[in-house]
């Protein structure tokens, strides 16, 4: 029944361009889709390992910059008289490199912060995002600084027998983002239900017990961070090639917060949570724009985040699933964070 809902949802999303002609709404849907991919990657960490990355936009932004620079080419001087000259490569190579390099950054951040638990990962990820933003702002020779990287080429896909297809229109980009989102969803779903996924949830719910049954905590957490960062990098690459201009503002903290709100509202630790939360918070600005000033919208966002945490602390999807589903399918939704156990641990 669950996969039926999933297939229906994908079909519904795929049919949207058939009846929606408004370019503004299409644009909102595409950027929302890109942010949902980012939110899904954040959920992998926050929902399944309990580690909150508050610098997630760094991986997204690194993906965007890597992809853009790969496809634009660059020529930078390094210390000791070295120079790196890079001729443009196809954007699809940039997409792959974005995943690899963002994943590598995830590895470094994980390596650094998983030596200690608790608030450290949060603070290290924030700091990392801020350092990356400062580098993007100050390394003008590479990134153009605040002048932004412009004229980023659109993604070109080689179709067998049909030649190259350059994805320029909103319609094409919509389907590109939808496909990547579906692949991401399936990937995370497979991962969560694998041995690795059980290890992640096990150590989230009771780390001491997880260690005692032989789960390598640091390795599991770091791997989760790598995968999560890689997916965020893919989302960033899509963003760069769709918007076709990026500047250091992409690293703005508020973008991370948007993803966090999407995950928390939809339900952390639920596969569909980021999609539901993402649709709500991705499209809310479209409807709020005519009636509210942007500042008032952000006040409302902050308020909604607080209210959700008070009223539906587990998020929309898990709460609904618990209310409507039969007892059997309750087990299918991934178990919520065992608050009591973690509390006991923290005070111990």
């Amino acid at each position: 029944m669950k996969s039926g809902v999933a297939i229906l949802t994908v079909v519904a999303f795929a049919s949207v361009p058939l009846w929606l002609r408004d370019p503004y709404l299409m644009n909102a849907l595409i950027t929302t889709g890109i942010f949902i991919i980012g939110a899904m990657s954040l959920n992998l960490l926050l929902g399944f390992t309990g580690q909150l990355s508050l610098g997630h936009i760094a991986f997204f932004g690194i993906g965007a910059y890597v992809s853009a620079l790969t496809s634009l080419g660059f020529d930078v001087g390094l210390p000791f008289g070295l120079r790196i000259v890079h001729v443009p490569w196809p954007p699809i190579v940039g997409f792959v490199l974005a995943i690899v390099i963002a994943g590598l950054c995830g590895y470094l951040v994980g390596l650094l912060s998983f030596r200690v638990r608790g608030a450290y990962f949060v603070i290290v990820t924030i700091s990392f995002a801020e350092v990356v933003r400062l580098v993007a702002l100050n390394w003008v020779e590479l990134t153009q600084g605040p002048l932004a990287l412009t004229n980023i080429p659109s993604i070109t896909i080689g179709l067998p027998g049909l030649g190259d297809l350059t994805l320029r229109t909103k319609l094409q980009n919509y389907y590109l983002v939808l496909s990547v989102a579906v692949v991401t969803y399936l990937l995370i779903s497979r991962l969560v239900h694998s041995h690795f996924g059980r290890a992640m949830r096990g150590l989230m719910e009771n780390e001491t017990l997880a260690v005692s049954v032989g789960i390598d905590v640091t390795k599991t957490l770091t791997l989760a961070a790598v995968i999560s960062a890689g997916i965020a990098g893919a989302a960033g690459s899509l963003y760069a090639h769709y918007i076709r201009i990026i500047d250091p503002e992409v690293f703005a903290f508020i973008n991370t917060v948007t993803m966090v709100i999407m995950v928390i509202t939809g339900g952390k630790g639920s596969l569909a949570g980021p999609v539901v939360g993402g649709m709500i918070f991705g499209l809310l600005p479209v409807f709020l724009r005519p009636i509210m000033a942007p500042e008032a919208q952000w006040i409302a966002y902050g308020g909604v985040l607080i209210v959700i945490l008070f009223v539906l602390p587990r998020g929309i999807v898990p709460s609904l699933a618990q209310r409507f589903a039969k007892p059997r399918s309750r087990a299918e939704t991934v178990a919520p964070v065992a608050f009591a156990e973690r509390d006991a641990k923290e005070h111990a």
Partner: protein
Amino acid sequence: MSEFLQHLINMLVLGGTYALLGIGLTLIFGIMNVVNFTHGVLYTFGAYIMFIVVQQLGINFFLALPLAVVAGWLLGAAIELTLLRPLRGSDIDTTMLVMIGAWIAMQSGALWIWGGVAKSVATPFPEAPLVLGPVSVSWLRLFVLAAAAMLIVVTYLLINRTKLGCAMRATFQDQDTASLMGVNVDLIYTSTFAIGSSLAAAAGALLGPVYVIFPQMGDLAAVKAFAIVILGGLGNITGAVIGGFILALAEELGAGYVSSGYRDAMGFLIIIAVLIFKPTGLFARSERVG
């Protein structure tokens, strides 16, 4: 050499306010186990109180500082009573996310009320700096250093010499035992958050007139405060004071001898270095978080 001395003077001025920020955050973390993301907003709030009192109401500059401290105290107490007290006993992630929500709402509120244009505050100090041999320092900055030092001493006495401070330290060590000994833990929590918030507001009120005042000014201050707290060890007050001065020194030297564009990156580099070499902080008791 004179350049280096100048950096040292600037370090003292910055370090004092950083220490205030760090003490506030480390108190709240140590006693309440709350990662307080509203700390930066309280800093901004203090600066805006300064702007309102001095520029809009035309009240004396020296009176504005205590007013900012009191306003920070009240806002901190209000946040604790409305948002944190109902969540007592929930996990650290939930309170952290609620604090993030409060931060976004309050910062956007500041943007809504005062607009994004940076404001400055007129000070009663003479324009000409005080020249001491090879170095010079403005009177305003000297005042900032003196006021910050005074507030640090007051906080230190409050925590180490008063009954409230004794109860706070007891709660820090063991909440349940403190409660059994007759400590009103709810009251301690509210007081702690209010004290921490008033220190952040004081830091903003002191640094606001030195720089300019705008709604996002607290973001960087908050992250720097986190750096200081990690440097000094979570929950360690003396560590926070020393951490504040170390961060200020790193920023001054980084801006002076590396690149001024990376001044604000120093805090993060410190965080990274501390986590690599001494993850419990430089002055920590041997305790891990979580």
